[in-house]
C-alpha cells in the first residue's frame, strides 16, 4: 500500500498545479497590425485593449467621446505608419501613463499584482493537499480497512426515500 506520508504525494500535484498556473498566467504573443490602409477592425483590435484616462473603465473601441475618437484616429495613423500593436500600446502608455493599459505592467511595484495570485494559489493548494493527506490518514483505521460507506451503494431507492423523509 502506498504511504501517504511520501513527499511525492504532495510534490506531484503541486508540480501539476504549477504547470496549470504557468499556462493560465502565460502571456500569449501579440499580433502585429501593419499596412497602409488599416481597417476599422484592425484599429479596434488595439483600441479594445486601451482605456482613456477620462472615460474610466470604458475601453477605447466603444467609447463615444471625442477624446476617444481622436485616440482611435491616432491608432489608425500609427498603424498606417507601420507600427505594431506593442509599439502603439507603449506609445500611449508613455504619453498618458500605464493606466491606459487593460492590465498593470509586469515590472516594478506592479510585479506584486501578478505575483500574489499564483503565490496565494500555491500556498492554498499546499494547505488543501496537507488537509487531504490528514483526512486520508484518518480514513485508515487500525486494521487498515477503509471506513464503511454510510449507505448501501446500490440501494438508490432507499437513499432517495430516506432523504426525502429527512428533508421534508
Amino acid at each position, binding site marked *: 500500500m502506498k504511504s501517504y506520508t511520501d513527499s511525492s504525494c504532495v510534490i506531484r500535484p503541486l508540480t501539476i498545479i504549477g504547470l496549470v498556473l504557468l499556462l493560465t498566467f502565460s502571456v500569449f504573443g501579440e499580433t502585429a497590425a501593419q499596412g497602409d490602409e488599416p481597417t476599422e477592425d484592425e484599429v479596434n483590435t488595439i483600441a479594445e485593449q486601451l*482605456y482613456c484616462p477620462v472615460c*474610466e*473603465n470604458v475601453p477605447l473601441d*466603444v467609447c463615444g467621446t471625442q477624446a476617444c475618437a481622436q485616440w482611435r484616429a491616432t491608432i489608425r495613423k500609427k498603424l498606417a505608419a507601420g507600427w505594431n500593436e506593442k509599439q502603439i500600446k507603449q506609445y500611449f502608455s508613455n504619453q498618458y*501613463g500605464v493606466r491606459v493599459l*487593460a492590465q498593470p505592467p509586469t515590472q516594478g511595484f506592479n510585479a506584486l*499584482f501578478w505575483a500574489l*495570485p499564483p503565490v496565494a494559489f500555491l500556498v492554498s493548494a499546499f494547505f488543501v493537499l496537507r488537509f487531504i493527506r490528514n483526512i486520508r490518514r484518518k480514513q485508515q483505521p487500525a486494521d487498515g480497512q477503509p471506513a464503511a460507506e454510510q449507505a448501501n*451503494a446500490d440501494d438508490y431507492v432507499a437513499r432517495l426515500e430516506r432523504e*426525502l423523509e429527512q428533508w421534508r
Partner: protein
Amino acid sequence: MIANLGFVAMFLALLCAIYAAVLALAVARGEQRQWLGSARNAAMAAWPLLTLACFSLTYLLVNGHFEIEYVASVSSRAMPWYLKATALWGGQAGSLLFWAWLMSAYTALVMLRDWRDERDMQPYVIAATMITLAFFVSLNVFIENPFTKLWMDRFGQTSAAFFAPAGAQPFSPSDGQGLNPLLRHPGMIIHPPMLYLGFVGFVIPYSFAIGALAVGRKDDIWIRVTRRWTLIAWLFLSLGLLLGGRWAYDVLGWGGYWGWDPVEIAAFMPWLTATAFLHSVMIQEKRGMFKHWNMILIILTYALVIFGTFLTRSGVLSSVHAFAQSAVGPLFFIFIGVTFAISLTLLFRGWERLRSENILTSWLSREGLFLLNNLLFMGILLACFWGVIYPLISELATGQKVTVGPPFYERTTGPQFAALLLLMGVAPLAAWRVTTVKRLGHTIWKPTAVSLLLPVGMLAAGVINPVALLSLWLAAQVLCITLYEFFRGATVRRKSTGDNFFSALCKLAARNRRRYGGYVIHLGVIFMAVGIIGIEMFQTSTQGTLAYGEQMTLGDYVLIYNELDEFPTEGDRIVTRAMVSVYKDGKFVTELHPRRDFYVDGQQPMTIPGVYSTLEGDFYVLLVDWKPIGAQGATFKIYLNPLVNWLWLGGFVFIFGTLIAAWPVKRKSLSQQLGAFGVS
C-alpha cells in the same frame, strides 16, 4: 414644508434606531427584560417614519421642487413622471435613504415573526439591525441630506443647506439637471431596488448569526430561522446582477453584458460568499460541521455588502457607476472596520463552542465536495477582491494609477468557474461521509456518456477551440446528470406510488423543495453558463462605414444601410436613428433601428443597439458615428453574440428554482423539527 416633514421623519427614524439599539443592548446585558418590547416597537417604528421620508422626497421629485438640491440634481421638467419617481435612487443621497428604507422594512418584518424559540437572540438581532440602520440614516441626516435646500445670498451666490444661511433667500432654478441618461432605462428602474433588496436582506441572517454568537448557542437554529431570508436576499441580489447585465447589454453599447467594472464586482462579491454560504449551511444542518466556516461566510457577506455600498457611494474607485463622490467614504470605511472587528471578536470568543460535531472523513463525500465548492467560491472572491483593490494599493504606494480590466479576471476566474461547473453536477450525488469513485462513477456514467455527444458533434461541425469544447461539455454533463437525477427520482416514485411520470415528478419536487429547487437553480446556472460561453468564446464583430445602399457582412448575416433620420422627441432628446435591413443566408429577416439619443439637459449621448434575437444568438448593431449628411456615410459596429439569450433564459429558470426552494412548507414547529434531527 414637505421637505421639512421628510427631514423630521428621517431624524425621528434615526432616534428610533438609536433608541432601539441602546435598549436592546441593555437588555442583552441583563437589564430590565421588559425594555425589549419597547426596543422592538422602536425598531418597527423606523419603517413608517422612513416610508414618510421616502414619500416626501418622491413627492418633491415628481412635482419638480427644484428648490431642493437633490431634486434639481437628478430630475428635470422634461423627464416622465415615472423616471422622476425612480430618481429617488438615482443619486447618492436618495439611494442611501432608499437603502435605509428597505433595511427598516426587512427589520419590521423580522420583528413581526414568532420569537418564542429565539427569544434570547432577539436583543442582539435588534441591536445589529438597528446599528446598521442608524449608520445609514445618520449619513442621510448629517452628510447626504436629500432634503437640503438651495439658497441665494445678497451677492447672487447660491449655496445648499437645510437651514437658511444668514441673509439668504430661497432659490429655485427654473429646471433641474436631469437624471444621468444612462439611468433612464426600464432596466435601471428595477435594477437598483433588486440589488439593494439583496444587499439589505443579508443583514438579517448576519444579525441572527451575531445573536447566536453573542448568546453562545451551539445549535444551528440561526441558520434554520434565516434560511428563507437568505434565499430571498440571494434571489434579489442575483436578479439585480442579471438586470444590471441586461441593462449594460441594452444601454452601454459595447455588445456585452459584463465588463468587470469595479462596481459590478462589488455587487458580485457578496453574491459569491452568499452562494458559498447557502451550500455550506446544508452541511451544518445535516452533519453539524463547518460551524466556524458558516459564521465566517455570513460575516464576510455582511462586510462585503457594506463594502459594495461603500464602493458605489464613496467614489473611491473610478467607474461608470460611481456617479458621485462625497465625504461618506471614510465613515463607511470606519463602519466596515468596526463591525468586522466586533463580529470576529464574537466568533473567536465562541470558537471552542462551535467545534464540529463530526469530522470530514473523506474528500470524496458530499461534505468534502461542498467544501471544495466553497474553496472555489473563495478563490474567485479573492481574485475579484485583489483586482478591485489593487488600483488603490498602487495609487497609495506609488502614486501611479493602473487599470485592472477583463483579461485579469477572465484568466483567474475562468478555470475556477469551470471547476465549479463540474462540482455542480457531481457533488449533489455524492453520499454523505464517504463514497467511492466506483459508486460515484456508477451514478454518473450514463449521463456523462450522453453529454460526450455534444463535443463530438461540435468537433464534427468544425469547432476546434479546446476551451470552448471543454466548457460546453462540462455544461452538457451537468445538464444530463441533473435531468437524469430528476428522471431517476420520478421513476422511483412512480414505481412506489403508481402515479404517472409527470405527477410523480411534481410530487417529488413538492416533497423536497429544497433539493429539487436547488436542481432547478442548477439548470438555470447551466443555461446561463451556455450563454456566457457562447458570447465569451464565439463572439465576433466588425466595424465599417457605409453609404446608403452599401452593405457589411458578418458570419451568415448581411447588413444593408438604408436611411438615417434625426428628430427631437419626448424627454428632451435628439434622436439620430439609422434604418438597416438584415439578411441571413440571402433571405431578409428584419429591419433594425440602431440609434444614438442625445439628452439636451444632461448634454450626454446614449447608444441604443438594434438587435435581432434568436435562441441561436443575437445580431447586434450599433450606430457608432455618421456624417452630417447621413447619405454620405454612417459607421456601424456589428456583433454576432452566439447563444447569449440562454443567459437571460437561464435567469428565469434560476428564479423559478429559487422560488421552489424558498416556497414555505406547512411544517412542524421548529423544536419538533430539531428534535427529529437530534439537535438539542
